[in-house]
């Protein structure tokens, strides 16, 4: 039964105009960003090759080593697009999955035919996860093809694993918002209200919390740094920060509550956008950034379990809206 519900969910999604519009927007943005990134890699490669040819024509034997072009960083823009458009897409998917059944009265019909509530939810989730996985795989293929065909670079095994892991994180990130959206739609009696609440929660988690982390940092209060502007030594800076330990913990805690921040941190480390992870293997990066992986996984599991409880205890399902 779960598979049947999932299959219907996939069919329905491709009839949803709002979902298709956002999907199209995401794909266009991804393609443009990957192609531009690949061209940048190609230009860097061409520059290096032409300088090598020039030095060889001068008879130089000692040639400079190839600079680290980091071709996988071409996906850098994708992190931002998934952070915004991908999350919106996931929210629309999750909300529609529940609210359409409410609106059409089909939820009552399905549940009255011996389908357990948890089976119903699991089928819905499975269908939506399959759609998100399909989108992730599609963008993955586009990225690989663009990097090789346009960028003209041969990716190493580590690059390929890093990219695959990065797309895995993108999938987990979108999964969270689908689960959240489904959860809120399950609790709320009105689909439009649920959508609005989910979007507000997304805005808070993705924009307000990370901003609190950045802008409330004491040293970010003045351009050029608060401590250096005040002419403070490192010792004085330490003393001041010691006085604000609770404030700092609170600020960091708020920032850690943002799945977007966790997604950004692990993605930038995997794509080598953030310096310091070049010498690590992809699995070492995941090992170092396990908290970010947990920060993507744990909220989804928690929200999903709470959705079970809310749906199980709900008594007004058979009442008409």
């Amino acid at each position, binding site marked *: 039964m779960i598979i049947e519900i999932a299959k219907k969910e996939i069919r329905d999604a491709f009839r949803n105009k709002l979902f298709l519009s956002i999907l199209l927007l995401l794909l266009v943005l991804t393609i443009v960003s990957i192609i531009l990134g690949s061209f940048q890699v190609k230009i860097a490669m061409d520059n290096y090759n032409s300088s090598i040819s020039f030095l060889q024509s001068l008879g130089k034997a000692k040639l400079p080593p190839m600079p680290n072009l980091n071709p996988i960083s071409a996906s850098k823009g994708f992190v931002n697009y998934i952070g915004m458009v991908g999350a919106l897409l996931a929210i629309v998917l999750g909300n529609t999955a529940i609210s359409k059944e409410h609106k059409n009265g089909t939820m009552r019909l399905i549940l009255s035919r011996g389908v357990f509530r948890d089976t119903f939810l699991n089928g819905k989730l499975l269908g939506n996860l399959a759609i998100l996985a399909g989108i992730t795989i599609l963008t993955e293929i586009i990225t690989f093809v663009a990097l090789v065909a346009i960028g003209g670079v041969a990716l190493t095994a580590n690059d390929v694993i890093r990219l695959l892991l990065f797309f895995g994180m993108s999938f987990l990130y979108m999964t969270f918002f689908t689960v959240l959206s489904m959860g809120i739609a399950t609790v709320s009696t009105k689909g439009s209200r649920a959508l609005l609440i989910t979007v507000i929660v997304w805005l808070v988690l993705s924009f307000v919390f990370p901003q609190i982390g950045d802008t409330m940092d004491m040293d970010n209060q003045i351009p050029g740094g608060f401590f250096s502007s005040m002419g403070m030594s490192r010792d004085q800076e330490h003393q001041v920060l010691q006085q604000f330990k609770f404030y*700092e*913990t609170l600020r*960091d805690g708020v920032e850690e509550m943002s799945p977007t921040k966790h997604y950004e941190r692990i993605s930038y480390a995997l794509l080598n956008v953030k310096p310091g992870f070049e010498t690590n293997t992809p699995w070492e990066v995941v090992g170092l950034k396990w908290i970010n992986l947990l920060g993507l996984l*744990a909220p989804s599991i928690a929200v999903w*379990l*709470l959705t*079970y409880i809310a749906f199980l205890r709900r008594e007004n399902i058979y009442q008409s809206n």
Partner: protein
Amino acid sequence: MKGLKKTILLLSVLIIMIFLSVSTAFAAESSGTEFSAGFNLSPGENKAVSLFIRNDDVAAHTYSLTAEKSSNSYELYFSANGAAIKKVTVPAGTSSQIDLNISLKGNASANEDKLAVKAVRDDGKENVISLSIVINKDYAISIKGMLAKIDVISGKSAEFTFSVTNNGYKDLKNIKIKPELPYKWFAIQGTESTVHLKPGETGTFTIKVDVPSSQVAGNFEAKFTAVSDEISSSQISIPVTVKTSSNIGLWILGILVLIAGFTLVQFKRNGRR
């Protein structure tokens, strides 16, 4: 006759003055000319040597600056008005001052060295100044980290131990360690302790560094220099890997188990519906 003598004397003074003044100046018009000047450099010392580029042409020119052909290895860069540069544009008929910032990298293999500083004009004319460098070994200090790499949990302290050796011929006084740490990392112990070292002696230092709990996991570099009243060592970098405390993970897992338990209770109480 007297007038002729006076003229010869004046000319001689002028020639001597010109000879002395060109020691640290490029004559940009004379292609391939070599001039020489010299300076002393102690290991660990950062020296700025002023050089002048004169453009006697009627048009402004850009000069590309390089330094090469030395026996020792140096860390060096050119700067003008405090900003690092690789090229300098000199207006017609004027001179520009540039500084060659130089410090010895590692141990000196030659005590007397030469460095060719080349200024290549945009039309290909090349001017070279050969700088003689005398390595002053009266004061020499080296620093070495006891551990090549350090792992630390965010919110905890890391201990760095160093051996500092006086490689010079004279005593070094008030040696201490000067750290250069990532943002919000603070040395909480060991930066105030000082030692005196006689030539050939080695001392050890331990510095305790606080890594803030807000530090996200990753690879960082902590840099340290041994500084005495007389000289400072070259800077060493120690890679530091910051890991996240497993306590946070345990807390999150605990909360998840709690929610899962609560869900099971609900299923048991209400049954599958």
